[in-house]
């Protein structure tokens, strides 16, 4: 997994609430047996017409907005547990998703793929949407070491929550499986005592 340390980028705004993982990557794209290529179908039904041509009014097709930070309305990533949603977001090139609220499973899946979900206050989120509407070049800075997110237009900054274990994983590019494999002895000891 790639290391994540600090990032300053313009943002792609998606001011829709309850964006579920069926929108992020529709089920018909889940037939693959590897992790590649999902970025092309990120938000497929919002992004493309039936004939495959881009829908002009969707933000990913609007050249005004670009960047490696996706900013979305509350309850992002609800619904299906498909990790393909995280692969699609990562595959498209987003490194961070900012929202006021994330669904649980998506949050885990994102972190397990080096995509950082950043929870901000409702006010902070509203201000980012307003700033980026006024100036699409508006940037955010995400500093994982210090756990801060800064709106570089208003100068406002908030701290965000991430457990210290996951933070270390992202900073060092490690994943959970490395950790779990190092615990084999404890797992076998647990199995010997558990209520079967």
């Amino acid at each position, binding site marked *: 997994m790639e290391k994540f340390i600090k990032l300053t980028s313009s943002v792609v705004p998606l001011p829709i609430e309850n964006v*579920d993982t069926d929108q992020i990557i529709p089920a018909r794209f889940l037939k693959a047996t590897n992790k590649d290529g999902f970025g092309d179908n990120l938000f497929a*039904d919002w992004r493309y017409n039936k004939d495959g041509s881009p829908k002009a009014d969707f933000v990913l097709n609007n050249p005004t907005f670009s960047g490696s930070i996706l900013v979305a309305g509350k309850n992002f990533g609800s619904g299906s547990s498909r990790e393909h949603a995280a692969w699609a977001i990562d595959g498209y090139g987003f490194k961070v998703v900012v929202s006021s609220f994330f669904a649980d499973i998506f949050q885990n899946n994102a972190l397990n793929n080096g995509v950082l979900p950043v929870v901000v206050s409702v006010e902070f989120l509203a201000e980012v949407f307003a700033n980026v509407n006024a100036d699409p070049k508006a940037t955010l800075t995400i500093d994982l070491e210090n756990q801060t997110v800064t709106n570089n237009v208003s100068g406002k900054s908030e701290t965000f929550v991430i457990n210290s274990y996951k933070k270390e994983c992202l900073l060092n590019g490690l994943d959970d499986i490395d950790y779990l494999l190092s615990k084999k002895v404890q797992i076998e000891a647990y199995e010997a005592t558990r209520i079967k």
Partner: protein
Amino acid sequence: MKSHYKRFMKTLFDKIWDAHVVSTVEGGPTQLYIDRHFCHEVTSPQAFNGLRARGLKVFRPEQTTLTADHNTPTINQDQPVKDPISKNQLDTFAKNAGEFNLPLYFPLGHIKNGVVHIIGPENGFTHPGATIVCGDSHTSTHGAFGAIAFGIGTSEVEMVLATQCVLQSRPKTMRITFNGKLSAGVTAKDLALYMISKLTTGGATGYFVEYAGEAIRNLSMEERMTVCNLSIEMGARGGLIAPDQTTFDYVNGREFAPKGEEWETKLAYWKTLKTDEGASFDKELVFDAADIQPMITYGTNPGMGMGITESIPTLDQVDEAGRISYQKSLEYMGFEAGEKLEGKSIDYVFLGSCTNGRIEDFRAFTAFVKGKKKADNVVAWLVPGSWMVEKQIREEGLYDILTEAGFALRQPGCSACLAMNDDKVPAGKYAVSTSNRNFEGRQGPGARTILAGPLVAAAAAISGKITDPRN
């Protein structure tokens, strides 16, 4: 402040969680031991690739149960799968089960094959007090047995295959109590849709829910599974119900359930699995079961539900920040704010899925349509959750009644619930569906889903309209 005494009181969730902690990562999650892992063809191939890349074996092969269900046809299952990409995914699943020596693999056509959350309990793999995971958010279904069951991503599937453990942050606890009795014509699905409409689609995020109260106690195992299944639709990590005689009677005698002396030992333990009196929850909600009527959804998430006789909320009843999303949702559905839906024409009816594809759902649907005829304007897909359900439908004579009423039966699978196969509702068409999600495009690009219970679905199939089954 909690009293000293109260600190020793545990919720059901705490008891099961604490019994499965292998270690706690400093400043981080819990390493949780997993008793039963369910696996299907769509969310597992990349996990097996991961094992191969690291040169790992499956750590506990007998603790993983595999069934093909999500990306399978519901007709002609005895013939080769036509779509080459789907066929490749199913072949890959078979290859992985073989290569990693997994004995509990149930491919297409196997008598134990079917929707993962239906075949699990049915074959006795689901036990009270267990930790259960699957790369599928509706794993919460198994909570009906008093288990901690939740959906995981593919990275976590790999972790379970490699170590029989996952790393999870401990969720907060919530208890939702339903006092009183459900009215006639109101099903477990209506109870769940009512609850989700009150909590909203993210209202239980971060929590593990225990369902309690008279109305929950009175539910059969099948109905409890429907309620726990839908926990994820309000964002909950999972939902569970304390095991009781109803649970023990269901599990006893099933093929993979404990037997003999082991049964007695386990039963004694299972009987201790309830929330201690005085234990506290992070959040408590109480509803009156008598307030619930048959429910339908009108929008594009399961929280957008209402009683079948009610009207769609007007814009001023919606939070200001949510109005754009709300309007977008109604526009997609082709509905107006303030409108009533009773009497609206519909095009498709889907009975099935891990939410309502069990034998009781088919009994309820069949009892309603008995002696009536399916409406000509309705395409009805009746998809049993498993081959065992299919067998029961035939043995109990439901098949003949359904045929007489103009319905055909398809073969088991997830089918139109997520429309990965050919069971897709065409763009713009309305489907009354007993499944779990009414998201945009969920049942096919442009499809418009109205979630409901089996009785509302039966009434719609007969009248061709949204109809109150109580009339």
